[in-house]
Structures are given as structure tokens and as C-alpha cells.
């Protein structure tokens, strides 16, 4: 019993400096936010929704130039092996500022519709960079991101927007950090999938299961009914998290558990949407995102003005069987993103929610293998999709490269190539792409270097694709 007595004395000493957990903090946060919410709900709300295409999506088949010579360049490399998309199969688009014709992958019918509606655009040739880079500079040994072409390292660099060293936080998390992300009891970031993107210095994400789990079932504590002994057990369980907090790791364990139970308690009802979502991996994640957005909008006691969401779809690492695999995956992305956009329209927040894609890397223009199993290998610069009512739609955005345009020169060993396989040296860095989104979200210009430590290496921090 000597030991427990000593523990008791230690706790008494630390009780005065113990911290308020869970319900108390939430109530305080709620009071703080309800005022703001009364003024601003619906007016100053913004959400960023990240869709991570895990494995490295082949951007060369996402958008294909259809002017004669450019399509000819593309076909020269891809047709023989069976990786080229037939020109008449592409869904035609004309980016406003380029004035040249392109085409979407045939699976992107819904995205094509969003493009036509002016709520979707493409950001071209984005990738991690330490400094802006030409082919000559690259071959001469100029600084470049660590471990190019490696999945885990590139995933980390896209999600952390740090390429000269191993980043410990994600740019989603660091963006949230600028906004006092835990002032309310409900975190700013909701993760439907794991990833360092959501981890900030102080910001930690709420992670929940996707649909079809009902919103009021995502954080459920099992095994408690209303009998007297169950009530007593729950009371004890809750009490145990408030004591012995002198041990740092014990305190942190209790605190996250508290947060889970509090939020589980907040998510008291399952909201419904009229918009139909496809029953797919991404569809179910985005459905849950839409539900959380709706839940926030109908819960005055919550009233978050800013939210960040992270979703992920895997399978894009198409070293083989790219034609069918990518076709199916892009169809899933297209349908899910369309449904999600429709849901934001239903909720009246279509101009306040921006969805964007990230991926490990693009893929080699040069095919890997040939015939029915043809695929492509790891590359670098990639094209990404941005969707939302606040997006300047119907256009391509980027930084002009060696071809004089923002679109890479589709030539093996050409001026855009890292080597001889068609791995594009990015002309837009990840932080430029991300900073454009973060600026729209509300990160002030002086804070951009805090969120994006290397942004100063690049000429612009705003690519202009947001209204």
C-alpha cells in the first residue's frame, strides 16, 4: 500500500494543475463559437476536401492534348504498346487560357459536365520541388526532392509539402493550426482515411468510418445500457480518465478517448441527404464528408466555420493492366466527386467547398510492357483536379515551362523530361498548388511561410484558380 499512498500524494499535488477534459472544454468552446456562428453561419464557411489517389495516378491519360501535333507526340510514345487513348474517345475540352483543344479520359463524363458548368479546372504538372528546376539543372545536379519515385517518400512529400527533409506534419494539419483548430470540441479536420496530411503541430484530426456507417454510429462506445451497475461503470470509466494525469502518455491517452466520447456524443443524429452517392470506396467517404458538413450546418452548438477533410482511394499504381484499372478508378472518382458536388449544391455551400486531388506522382509517358497488361512506371509531375463553386472553372492552371506553356512537352528525353522515359519535371511545386488552396481557405499571406516553409523558393504562391 506504500506505493498507492505515494501515488495518491503525487496526484493531490498535481490536481491543481490538472486540465479540464472533454465536456467542460467543449462547453467553453461552444460558448465561444455560438456567437460567431450566429453571425456568420452559412456566410463565412469554407471547407477543403482532399482526395488522395494512392499509388500514383497516370496524369498523361487524365488529360490528353488533341491538337494534331501534340496528340501525335502522345500517340508516338503510347499507341504501339496499347496505352494511348483513341483521340475520338476523349471527352473534348478547350481550356480557356490555352485556346488549344484537349480531352478528358473517357471515364470522366461527370467531371466533364462539371468542367462545362464552370466548376472544375485542372492544375498542370504539379510535383514536389526544392527549387524550380529545368532539365539541364536537374541533370547537372541541382537540389531536388529526396527519394524521387519512391511511394512512401513521395506520398509524404505531397501530404507534408516539404521536400528537402522528412516533414513531421501535413499541410492540412499546419493549415488548420493557423485557426485554433480545437477551440470547439469538434476538430477542424475530419479524416476518412489515414495520412500525415491531417497531422498538425496542435491540430489532430477526428477520424471516422465512411458511410454506410451512420454518423451517430461512427464513434460509439459499446456495452453500456441503463441499468444501475452500467451507469456506475460508466461513471467510473469517465472518472479514471481525469486522474493520474501526471504521466504524460496516460494523460494523452485519456484526452483522445475523451474527445472520441464527446464527439460521439455530439454526433447524436444521422443526417440524411437527398443526393444519391455511388456505393463505392470514394463515394462512401465523400458521402460521410457531406454528412459531416450538413451536421455542422444544422448544429448551431457546433458552428464550425472552417473544415478540412481527407479521403483516399487506392489502386492507382498501374505498373500493369493500366487500361482497365485506371478506367475503373477514374470512373469512381468522377462519379463520387460529382455526387459530392451535387450534395454541396443541395446544402447551399457549393461556393464554399473546394475538392482537390493529390497523388504520389504521375507516371512515365513511356509504357511499361505492352499489350493487354500494359502499364506505366513511377514518374514525377502530375495533373490534378480542382472542383467547387469557388474554382475558376473550365481552364488549366500552372507555370509555363520549357515548351512555353504550362503543359509539359510530351517528348521522351525532351525538355520536360527527367530522363528518357517521360517523367515530367514539375513546373508547379506542391506548395504552390497547396498555398493557392490554403489562401482561399483563409491563411493570411504572412502565415504562408509557416504553413509552407519553402514557398519562398517559388515565384508565386497563388496560381489563380480560385475566385
Amino acid at each position: 500500500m506504500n506505493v498507492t499512498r505515494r501515488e495518491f500524494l503525487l496526484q493531490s499535488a498535481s490536481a491543481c494543475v490538472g486540465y479540464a477534459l472533454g465536456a467542460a472544454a467543449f462547453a467553453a468552446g461552444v460558448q465561444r463559437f455560438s456567437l460567431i456562428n450566429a453571425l456568420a453561419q452559412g456566410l463565412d464557411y469554407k471547407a477543403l476536401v482532399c482526395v488522395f489517389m494512392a499509388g500514383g495516378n497516370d496524369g498523361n491519360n487524365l488529360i490528353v492534348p488533341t491538337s494534331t501535333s501534340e496528340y501525335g507526340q502522345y500517340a508516338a510514345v503510347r499507341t504501339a504498346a496499347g496505352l494511348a487513348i483513341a483521340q475520338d474517345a476523349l471527352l473534348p475540352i478547350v481550356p480557356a487560357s490555352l485556346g488549344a483543344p484537349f480531352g478528358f479520359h473517357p471515364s470522366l463524363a461527370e467531371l466533364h459536365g462539371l468542367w462545362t458548368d464552370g466548376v472544375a479546372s485542372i492544375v498542370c504538372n504539379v510535383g514536389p520541388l526544392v527549387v524550380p528546376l529545368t532539365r539541364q539543372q536537374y541533370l547537372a545536379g541541382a537540389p531536388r526532392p529526396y527519394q524521387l519515385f519512391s511511394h512512401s517518400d513521395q506520398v509524404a512529400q505531397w501530404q507534408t509539402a516539404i521536400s528537402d527533409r522528412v516533414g513531421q506534419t501535413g499541410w492540412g494539419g499546419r493549415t488548420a493550426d493557423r485557426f485554433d483548430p480545437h477551440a470547439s470540441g469538434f476538430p477542424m479536420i475530419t479524416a476518412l482515411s489515414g495520412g500525415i496530411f491531417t497531422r498538425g503541430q496542435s491540430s489532430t484530426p477526428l477520424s471516422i468510418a465512411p458511410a454506410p456507417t451512420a454518423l451517430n454510429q461512427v464513434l460509439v462506445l459499446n456495452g453500456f445500457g441503463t441499468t444501475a451497475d452500467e451507469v456506475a461503470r460508466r461513471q467510473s470509466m469517465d472518472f479514471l480518465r481525469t486522474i493520474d494525469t501526471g504521466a504524460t502518455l496516460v494523460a494523452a491517452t485519456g484526452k483522445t478517448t475523451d474527445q472520441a466520447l464527446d464527439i460521439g456524443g455530439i454526433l447524436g443524429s444521422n443526417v440524411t441527404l437527398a443526393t444519391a452517392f455511388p456505393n463505392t470506396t470514394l463515394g462512401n467517404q465523400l458521402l460521410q464528408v457531406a454528412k459531416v458538413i450538413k451536421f455542422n450546418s444544422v448544429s448551431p452548438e457546433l458552428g464550425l466555420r472552417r473544415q478540412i477533410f481527407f479521403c483516399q482511394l487506392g489502386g492507382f499504381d498501374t505498373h500493369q493492366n493500366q487500361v482497365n484499372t485506371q478506367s475503373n478508378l477514374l470512373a469512381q472518382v468522377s462519379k463520387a466527386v460529382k455526387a459530392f458536388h451535387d450534395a454541396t449544391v443541395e446544402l447551399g455551400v457549393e461556393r464554399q467547398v473546394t475538392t482537390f486531388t493529390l497523388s504520389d506522382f504521375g507516371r512515365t509517358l513511356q509504357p511499361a510492357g505492352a499489350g493487354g497488361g500494359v502499364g506505366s512506371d513511377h514518374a514525377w509531375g502530375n495533373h490534378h483536379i480542382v472542383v467547387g463553386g469557388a474554382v475558376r472553372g473550365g481552364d488549366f492552371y500552372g507555370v509555363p515551362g520549357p515548351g512555353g506553356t504550362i503543359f509539359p512537352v510530351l517528348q521522351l528525353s525532351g525538355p520536360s523530361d527527367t530522363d528518357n522515359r517521360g517523367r515530367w519535371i514539375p513546373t508547379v511545386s506542391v506548395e504552390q498548388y497547396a498555398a493557392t488552396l490554403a489562401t482561399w481557405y483563409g491563411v493570411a499571406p504572412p502565415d504562408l511561410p509557416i504553413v509552407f516553409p519553402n514557398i519562398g523558393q517559388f515565384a508565386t504562391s497563388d496560381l489563380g484558380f480560385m475566385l
Partner: protein
Amino acid sequence: MIRPFTARSIGLLGLIFVATVSGSPPLDAAADLAGSYELVALHSGKCLDVSGQSTDDGAPVVQWTCNGGLSQRWTLQPTDDGNVVLIAGHSGKALDVRGASLKDGAHVIQYTINGGANQEWLPQPVGDGYYTLTAHHSGEVLDVSAESMDDGGIVIQWPLHGGANQEWLLRAVVGGRPSSADVTRFLEQATWGPTPALVQHVQDVGFARFLDEQFDAPASSYPTLPLFPTTRDQTACPDNSTCVRDNYTMYPVQNRFFVNALYGDDQLRQRVAFALHQIVVVSGVDVTQPSWMSPYLQTLDRNAFASYRQLLYDITINPAMGNYLDVVNNTKTRPNENYAREILQLFSIGTVRLNPDGTPQLDQAGQPIPTYDQTTVNNFARVFTGWRFASGAPGIPNYIDPMVVNETQHDTGSKTLLNGVVLPAGQNTVKDLSDAIDNIVNDPNVGPFISKLLIQHLVTSNPTPDYVARVASVFNDAGGARGDLRAVVRAILLDPEARGDVKDDANYGRLRHPAQYIANVLRAFGAGSADGTSTSDGYLNPQSVLMGMDLFRPPSVFSYFSPGTVVPGTTGVRGPEFGLFSTSTALRRVNFVNTMAFSRIAVSANSPNGTSIDLSGMEALAGDPAQLVDALNVLLMHGAMSNDMRQSVIAAVGAVPAGTAHKRAQTAVYLVATSPQYQVER
């Protein structure tokens, strides 16, 4: 034991010698020395012993070759005047000058403790852990007669003359009978969870002997499984079949992990091998057949207590690793950098120069110093060329045998590696590999880098630099060997920072990761099949997945979580396992305990036996809630449960009607096992 001061006449000679000896104040020295020791004579290296292990009063005390026996284990008990009584471990009798003689050369014997000044000795340090021991009644010192070098050399008292036969190393004996609390903590560090039987056993044999048992225990390991075609035959092995489950998913090795953890004798080996798996990572995400993973897991098991050099070499030519990090078919025309980078960054030296205590070295500008650059990576990439799978059937690559050499693909140019070492041109695949592995393992970073990771996996997420330094120095040199994992693991577990009944440091401890949490709870309560009539089938990975850890399928070579993960809400307190701890996994952990405490894992298509725990032992105590909670305090919390926690759980147990002992037991187990206090191994 406190003794009343007894006046004795002290020879004038003794007074002079006591007055002239230097060193720290004797009172403090004596109190600090409480504990059990071997007394090793400086001149001979032999131990103070009772002749023939006799338990008789008057049995002669001699020197004898140190052998760990109880008659060589002396417990020093301080008196209240700065002296100590030395009590023989086999007899409980005191080191005594026969007849309280004042004569030079009087024999030293053992005698029943009687409080006499001729049983009191003043230890005075002479440096390096050596002491003289001055008999209180006479002022003469403990001495091996005639500076004998022989076993059986007689021990006497003699005037102090500074000779080596009068100087004794007090070598702390780790053991004696360790406390149940320290043993419980030790087993949480060294196994997949303490059980009452194992606690008893380790108390009986002591830490050192238990470690030896564990080092010798044969590996439970994983069976070698039949290889299947890389391109699945959709007819023979259709979607969603058990054929797919058993041969194209990690299911068999995941189940085997838990069966080994629950029932295998080689607990420490399993624990260390799983730590090594999280350092030298291969993932089932890419290495997709269990028959491909199994040889990799066997390699970790085989080398868990071998040399780190051997481990790195064997892993490099393991085919699963060859696939995972692209060593297999790595060609000299386009050498792949993947393995070269990861073997340096993750498996050996890390990215920044370290001090021997694991802290980063800083340059003039206060910046960390990189350990290697792209050129180094390029050179190592060229080393790792010229390997292919051993021969196998068409479409069925050989993941069982180590990779074999393909000399024509080996880059035989000269390569500059770490620390200026240059491999000359013209060396073959194996020679280059062997030299490169030596080069890597000899880098001074490896000791602190690997030692710190192993400490984090076994004991605590935030070791003090001194702890890291102590273990790293064992890594660097254990009896002349470098990277002796057996010695390193022993050093980690026996270090004072690991041992003790309870730890007060705020940042001490580590969050139990999902597989450990599952195994700990199940082992504590004798897990068996769902109906309790046989054993669990180990089908527990789904629970682990829900908590964020899909066994043998970490998301990347960066493992299930990063060692650099910061505990949420702190600036810089490490908590690697918190990388898997989110709002949803926090509740999944609690809900897992709810399942085991109040229900079971039922028999199903994938679980022929199911899993349940046995609460009968707890039920037997449920009539008295305090007794029940105290038992759980001992079993799960090594006696460290706070009074507040104890009262709260007792009250909740008491709220369950007395007639339902089972429900009381369930309630108590639920509350303790889900508590943050238990979730953190401390």
C-alpha cells in the same frame, strides 16, 4: 535493519586506520550500498564464499571462483552508525570475526546474527567500485590470507596495508528474489504479457536466469508455406475462396502471430523479432503471399539474438525484402536506389549524425549533420546489384531460399561507401555485399540508432540519453563483439531505467500498440477458445486492424508508426504508438475489451475456435470488491494503481449485485483494462 549502538572497545591501531582512510562519508556510503552483492577480491578475482555452502555457525569464510551461488550472495544491511552487516544468501548468517578476536589473522566465519561489533563492517571506497571492509570491533580489514590465489583461500582480518587482497569489488547481484511488481513490469517489457504463473517463475529464478532461458528457448516462428503462382489461377483459387484467404492474404501468418504470442514459450524472441520487423520492414501490402512473408519472419526470429551484422546480411538477401525494396533483379545498367536508401535511413544509421547517447550532433550553425548524401546512396545502389531469385517453377518465384547471385548484373566498379571506405573495383557480388554490410554496421551511428529504437519498442518512448548511451556501449562492444543483440536486449531489460517497482518520471512509458494490447489482455486471463474447452485459434487480426494495426501489412517501409511521432498535446515528447491512436481507434480499443470481458470472439468461417478469456479466478474474489480490485492491481498494474482509481473501481464493482460474481469480475476487468493507466505500459 536498525541496530542499537553497542559500545565496544576499539583497538588504538584500528582508530588510527579508520581516521586515515579517505573516501565519501561512511554513513551515506553504507545506506547507498543496501542490497545484494558478490564480493570479488581484487588480487584473485574470486568471490567471498562460505566453505562448502555450510549453514553451520563457525563455518569458515573463504574465497572461491565466482559461480552465482547463494553462498556467494551477500546482502548488505546498513546499521545506524554507518556500518553494514553482511548476510550470506544461503544461510542467513552474518560475516563474523571468530570470537570477536582482535588478533591479526583471526579467521572470518559465518555466525548467527547477534548484533556484535565483530559482525559489523565499515565499507570504504577505494575507487572503481572497490572497497575495504573494516571490522568494527578491531579496526582490521577483510583480507585473503597470504594473498592466496586458490579456491578455498582462507579469509581473515588483517591490518590495512593497501594490498589488492584487501580490496573487494561490490558487484550488485541482479536478483535475489525480485519483487512481484518489478517482475510484472519486466514481463510487460520482455513478453507479450505477464501471467500469474510466469510472474511466479521469474520471481523464483530471477531476471538473469529467466533471460538465459529465453535466449535458449526454441523459436515458435512461422511454418514454411507452399508457394503459389504470382498470377492467381482464377479457377483453382477463385475470388473470395479459402484458397485465396490461405495463400494470397496474410491470414495464416497473422493467426500464427497470435497463437505464438498467447502460448509460445519463446516470448522474448517473439517480442524482439516483432520490434525488428518494425525496423527492418517488409510489408504484405506489396509482398502479398504469406509464403513470401514467412521466410522473412523466420529470418527475424533466427537473428533476434544474433549479431546485427548477421541480421542485416540475411535480410538483404531475403527474397521478400528483395521484392519489397527492389534488390531482386537490380541491374548494373539502372541500379535501383530503394534498398540503398532505406538500409541507411531506416535500418542502420538514420539521417543525422548521433552522439553515443542518441542525441543529434550539431554543426557550427547548430544544424544536424547528415550521415550520407545522394552520392553515397548511388554507390550503395551499385553494391546491391547482381541478385536474383533462386530457381523456382515458372510463374512461381522462389521466396523461400535466399536470393542467389547473378554476376553478370553486378556492378564491379569501385564504390566509395561510408566514412571514406572504398571498395576496390573487381569484387564480386557477395564480396561487395559483405564488405558493404560491414561498412554500415561499423558506422558509429548504428549503436545509438538501433539501441534507442529497441528501447522504444520494449521499455519506454523517451529514454534518457544516459540510458541510450549505456545500451549503445553494449552494442558497440559486448565482450569484444559488436552488435550482439543478446547482450543489447539484456542491457535494455536489466538497466536501472527499465527496472524498479514503479516509475515516477512524467514522460516514462509507452502506449501498448494494438497487437500488444490484445495479447496482454488475453494472456492475463488465460485466453482459450470461445467455449473455453481448447485454445484460441489466434484469429485476432481483425481486432488489431480496427485499432489501426494490420499485422504484417504496415502501410510502408516507414512501418506502422514513426518513431518521431509526438504525443498529442505535447511539444516533443515522443509517443510512436500514438501514430495509431485516433478518436476512432481509441474507442475501438475500449470496445475490444468490452468484447473480451462481456462476450467473446465467436466461432466463424475464419475462426474455427474463437477466443475467450477466463475470469474464474477473478470471480472467486468478487465477493469482496476490494480484494478483486487489489488482485487486478497486482496482475495488470504491478501494484501501482492510485488510491483514487482503486476507490472508483471498487465502487463500480460494488454497484453490481453481490450475487452476480461473474458480472462483478467483468466490470472490474473492463474498468482496469480500458483505463489510460493500463493502456500505457509504465
